[in-house]
């Protein structure tokens, strides 16, 4: 459900930025969303499209780049991508407490015309 609030934030930033740059229309919004961010892409897209109706972002596409979870193993001094959120280092089996990526909710850029 919180996808709606996030979509509102994206739309506001996109519209404000487009206006500042003297652009009439938002064509594309690029996002990076981590696998641990707890956001469902479809729900976010649905909410954004609904909110963008009758605004200069109407019809704009959301391009979502998924960001995988990456953990750091202090014992092996290396990063690894855990399978299905297990956080265990595949080399030494130690549990990693350092998730270095995967919680991103980032607005990368917009394309305007």
């Amino acid at each position, binding site marked *: *459900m*919180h996808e709606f*609030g*996030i979509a509102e*934030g*994206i739309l506001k*930033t996109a519209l*404000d*930025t*487009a*206006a*500042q*740059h*003297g*652009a*009439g229309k938002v*064509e*594309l919004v690029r*996002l990076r969303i981590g696998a*641990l*961010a*707890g*956001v469902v892409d479809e729900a976010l897209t649905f909410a954004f499209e609904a909110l963008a109706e009758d605004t200069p972002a109407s019809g704009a596409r959301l391009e979502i780049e998924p960001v995988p979870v990456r953990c750091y193993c202090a014992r092996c001094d290396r990063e690894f991508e855990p399978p299905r*959120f*297990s*956080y*265990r280092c595949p080399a030494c089996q130690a*549990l*990693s*407490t350092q*998730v270095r990526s995967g*919680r*991103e*909710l*980032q*607005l*990368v*850029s*917009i*394309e*305007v*015309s």
Partner: protein
Amino acid sequence: MCDHCGCSAPKHSHAHDHAHAHGHGHGHAHDHHHDHDEEHRTIALHQSLMARNDRHAEQNRGYFKGRGTLALNLVSSPGSGKTALLEATLRDLKNEFRMATIVGDLATDNDARRLRASGAPSVQITTGTVCHLDAHMIQHALEDLGNTPVDLLFIENVGNLVCPSNFDLGERLRVVVTSVTEGEDKPLKYPSIFQNADVVLLNKVDIAEAVGFKRELALKNIREAAPAAVILEVSARTGAGLPAWYDLLRDYTRAKPAAHHHA
């Protein structure tokens, strides 16, 4: 009035936080764009969608630090026993700490009323359709708490294991409350909320046997999903395991300077 930001709540309609957007008086230099209406331009932003919440959360963290308050954010699914756990805590530690609660609920203030019965101040945040608390709502609740000195502030989040995980409230400890009636695989289904938990309280252990709870499997799953968390098995109803929870609270309050509470 909202002094913190241009919050979009209807009663705070002065959305002034983007005032900088009006500072671009040089906008007329862009006339040439009218000749290229079809041209697409990319504008780099590289900003976190949580930036505004995170800013408010940092303000809250500073506020708590300045006042020597240990703030805890309690998250769980509905019915895990957060309120019962807080009732027991407020009752058992009332001669030791000055405590307060902030309670988020979709519609009712039943939980806040239950907690107020303990004598500790409790501020209700009714979120309506919003499924989580955010750092800005906490700022308004702190205004309502006023200048009451507080050693321990318990923030009871909306019962929901998905949405609250993105919203830093400025707390020192994120506590996930889960219970034996929810089954052993809860942590695997909600990895996002468990992953950065500081404490996991496994509640209702008094009825574990009756519901066929597989303790070893559950503890293993919690350990895997919340690698950094302290795991405590408790029963808010019988009091089993609560001394360890209270010791943890004591440890974290002792770690701060200027503890000036007396029984």
